[in-house]
């Protein structure tokens, strides 16, 4: 296990735990945002910006975006290995999709920074 911990190699248990823990964070965020939209009538810019200006919400939002990045890293890999048989094409697709996923986190970080 030590070599597994020290290297970047993944294993099934790691993917399994990562997939479900990140899902729990994304689920919590989804429920929170759904509750916010349901309980807020006529959302204004001040309210909307105010929601993301608190430190707790910044942490929650960033944690969710990072969770999405980890979740799609595993999920898209699962889908791609099933449907894209050519390993070179799959490598390129995985790279591009993971860069997009990282982009979501980066955009989120800078947006939250400015709110």
């Amino acid at each position: 296990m030590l070599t597994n911990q020290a290297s970047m190699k993944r294993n099934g248990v790691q993917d399994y735990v990562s997939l479900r823990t990140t899902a729990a964070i994304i689920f919590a965020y989804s429920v929170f945002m759904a509750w916010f939209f349901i309980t807020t009538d006529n959302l204004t810019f001040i309210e909307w910006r105010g929601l993301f200006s608190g430190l707790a919400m910044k942490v929650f939002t960033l944690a969710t975006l990072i969770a999405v990045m980890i979740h799609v890293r595993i999920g898209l890999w699962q889908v791609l290995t099933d449907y894209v048989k050519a390993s070179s094409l799959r490598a390129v697709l995985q790279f591009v999709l993971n860069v997009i996923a990282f982009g979501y986190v980066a955009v989120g970080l800078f947006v939250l920074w400015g709110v």
Partner: protein
Amino acid sequence: MGNSISLRIKQAYIVKKQRPVNLELNTIKFPPSAISSILHRVTGVAMFFALLFVIWAWAVSVSSPEGFADVQAIMDGFLGKFVAIGTASALIYHILGGLRHVVMDLGYWEELESGNLSAKAIIALWIILTVVLGVALC
């Protein structure tokens, strides 16, 4: 992804073994658990790309009052509503499918009958919630 995919592979194997090949497509049917599994994948991939729009809309709407008004105008239009309902609907299905997976992690709904029944149940619940969402947003 567990049960339903191995089930699909097993089915494909059985279909391959039984000859002659059946080309009557209307007699070939995926079991509900297979449909549930595919929907989980489709909604997941769809949301990944929908996030391009969601994160863009979020970034613009919190940046300035003008940006907020722009996004609000898009959300009042057909395209905005279509993407919003589609994304939220995909999220609802993916969550329901995910919760079903958690139940299967705990050792329930893993039999052919219970697995297909739970698949039918979440698909039905998803359709109901999507209709409710559509009515609420339109």
